């Protein structure tokens, strides 16, 4: 679970952001990543200007990304494709605020919902042992799905990110916490 959540946090760091306030940003945006592992007494901080992330995406090799679009193709044994996800997203977007999925199992509870302009993905384990909170602005997901076919439009996603301020991802378990957020501080 821990590896999965950390991986999820890393990917989402580049993809999404949640707004805390809605006014237009005044300065340049920075992405911040903090990973604290209490069992190893380890703290890692990464702070990157979004302009640097954008520059890396612009120059990424074509076999990874072409013109800011990433080609994913079909993935997994269930043949989930980007175009399928895009269709599902368009349907979900049209429904407005709703609970899309709530899964309650013995060892965890998963909730996927839309609230206002945020898509929420919350995973919680009993007694607060472990939790993942991802809050994705609708505009960012829209921007990502603005590619064609099996492509995600990362550049458009990054452009949306530049407007966002606040937490993107929070993960905590018994031994570690991960926080990814955007602000104008460095």
């Amino acid at each position, binding site marked *: 679970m821990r590896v999965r959540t950390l991986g999820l946090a890393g990917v989402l760091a580049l993809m999404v952001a949640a707004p805390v306030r809605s006014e237009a940003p005044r300065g*340049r945006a920075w992405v911040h990543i903090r990973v604290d592992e209490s069992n*190893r007494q*380890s703290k890692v*901080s990464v*702070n990157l200007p979004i*302009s640097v992330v954008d520059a*890396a995406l612009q*120059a990424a*090799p074509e076999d990874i990304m072409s013109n800011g679009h990433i080609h994913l193709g079909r993935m997994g044994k269930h043949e989930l494709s980007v175009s399928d996800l895009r269709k599902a997203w368009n349907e979900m977007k049209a429904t407005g605020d709703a609970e899309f999925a709530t899964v309650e199992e013995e060892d965890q509870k998963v909730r996927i919902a839309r609230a206002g302009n945020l898509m929420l993905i919350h995973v919680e384990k009993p007694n607060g042992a472990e939790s993942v909170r991802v809050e994705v602005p609708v505009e960012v997901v829209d921007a990502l799905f603005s590619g064609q076919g099996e492509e995600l439009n990362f550049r458009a996603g990054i452009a949306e990110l530049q407007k966002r301020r606040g937490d993107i991802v929070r993960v905590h378990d018994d031994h570690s916490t991960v926080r990814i957020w955007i602000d104008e501080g460095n």
Partner: protein
Amino acid sequence: MLKMVLIGAVAVPAIAAGSVAATGVVVVNVQEARGGHHFVVPVPLALAQVAAAFVPENKTRLHLGRDAEKYLPVARQVLSALAEAEDGELVRVEEPGQKVSVRKEGDMVRVSVDDGDEHVKVQVPISLALAVLPSSGTQVSASQAVFALQHARLTEVVNVQGKDGEQVSVTVY
């Protein structure tokens, strides 16, 4: 006649010193552990450039490998964007007995590694890194790298301090 000789005796070293100062000097300073030998080796950059020019090209070129061709443009773009970004701490890692910090300050990227016994500080001007990276292909030439050191004038590029007091520093003047 004596006047001409005196003028020559003063002018030649002055011009030589001026040329060296204008083109830069790399000073390698090595202090051995426990009060051992102390070496200071000044190398005029102009001399290093001339020497590099005489070495066969295949001996002075570092081939970075096939993958580098794909990722060098990324490195160039990232460095260029970083040069224009605000100053700040880019990375900080703290573990018991070890600290690593990477900061951007002006044109400089400062890396500091402190593992208790050893302290390493590296300061690399972004303009130097951009000058060393090939604009096309995957080869870095030694003469290009030496020439790029001009971007690091008045900078202590490397400083390593060992647990027994040994110290190595490389400074470009």
